[in-house]
């Protein structure tokens, strides 16, 4: 069974999101709805962020499709609940295997956006599941640990899954998310398509 560190030994999610952007400033970053999106917006609001507003379970698949389309690094900031919803997609990632894809599971073991109910991520070792699918993987629980594993992932010749144990909770404040979808899609796509 995967390690389930107590909250005091889990990383700050906003700091982890900031580390990802600092390590790969040109990366397209696809964030799961809710907490992953809020923490990314708080850490580094930028045109190459795509904040999902629904479609739980489709976050990693969307990042996979993007990685098959662009040369730049593509990083998915997954949620543990979202990945549990579509755990089979790791087999799809392993089969398609774009080297520019990194999946960071922001694993707070809760359904944070709906009130913090415990998820079954406490039972699951995501790195082991990814490894069983044939993917390179790692488990981290500090910002420094994430930074090191994420930096290494950029040099892998295939996709990497990093299970990042983070504290639950939302950032105190963050830039607004475009829930009307009128602008964000075009801002993001224009980064890659003329």
């Amino acid at each position, binding site marked *: 069974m995967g390690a389930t560190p107590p909250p005091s030994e889990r990383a700050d999610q906003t700091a982890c999101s900031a580390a990802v952007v600092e390590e790969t400033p040109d990366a397209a970053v696809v964030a799961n709805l809710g907490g992953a999106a809020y923490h990314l917006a708080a850490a580094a609001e930028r045109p190459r962020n795509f904040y999902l507003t*629904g479609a739980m379970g489709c976050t990693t698949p969307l990042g996979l499709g993007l990685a098959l*389309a662009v040369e730049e690094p593509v990083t998915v900031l997954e949620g543990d609940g979202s990945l549990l919803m579509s755990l089979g997609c790791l087999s799809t990632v392993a089969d398609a295997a774009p080297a520019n894809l990194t999946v960071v599971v922001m694993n707070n073991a809760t359904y944070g956006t709906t009130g913090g109910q415990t998820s079954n991520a406490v039972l699951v070792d995501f790195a082991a599941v990814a490894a069983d699918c044939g993917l390179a993987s790692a488990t981290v629980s500090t910002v420094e640990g994430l930074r090191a594993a994420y930096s290494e992932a950029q040099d892998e010749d295939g996709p990497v899954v990093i299970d990042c144990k983070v504290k639950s909770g939302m950032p105190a404040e963050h830039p607004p998310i475009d829930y009307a979808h009128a602008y964000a899609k075009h801002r993001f*796509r224009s980064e890659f398509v003329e």
Partner: protein
Amino acid sequence: MAWTDDAMDGLRAAEVDLVAHLPDSVVGPLVELAVDSEMETVLVAREEEAVGVLSGAWLGGRRGALVCQTSGLATTFNALGSLSKPWGLPFVGIVDRRGGLGEFNLAQVPAGYNMDDLLEAIGIRNGTLRDGDDVAARVAMAADTAFDTQEPYVLLAEPTLTGGK
């Protein structure tokens, strides 16, 4: 010429270069044609993933097709309703119909037979591919309008065209 050859001609005419699929015996040959045409193909574990894959690919500048059976399309509705439709993320769907003419399995009937109405209910445009249709033209036109208007368009291939299961 098999209907799948015509469908592939339509996809190529519309510059589709990525097929996300979970095949069956009816659309499997279309996937094989995609491989032969050097289109990229992505085999998904669940069809809802394919909507995510095709949406991400379009955000990166590609044009994608979903190829599956109606039972699989039924698994995509949260993605259609909370990703494809509100964001305006297009793909063309070529989905073989179960649940209607010739169907032997009652489990295929509720979603398959009613798939047009289910898609209509959430505003996903759709049409059919039937025997006698100009399949290549309909597929190309469905794809073109999907990518021009930035919304999915789904074509349901009837067993009168495909021969069914």
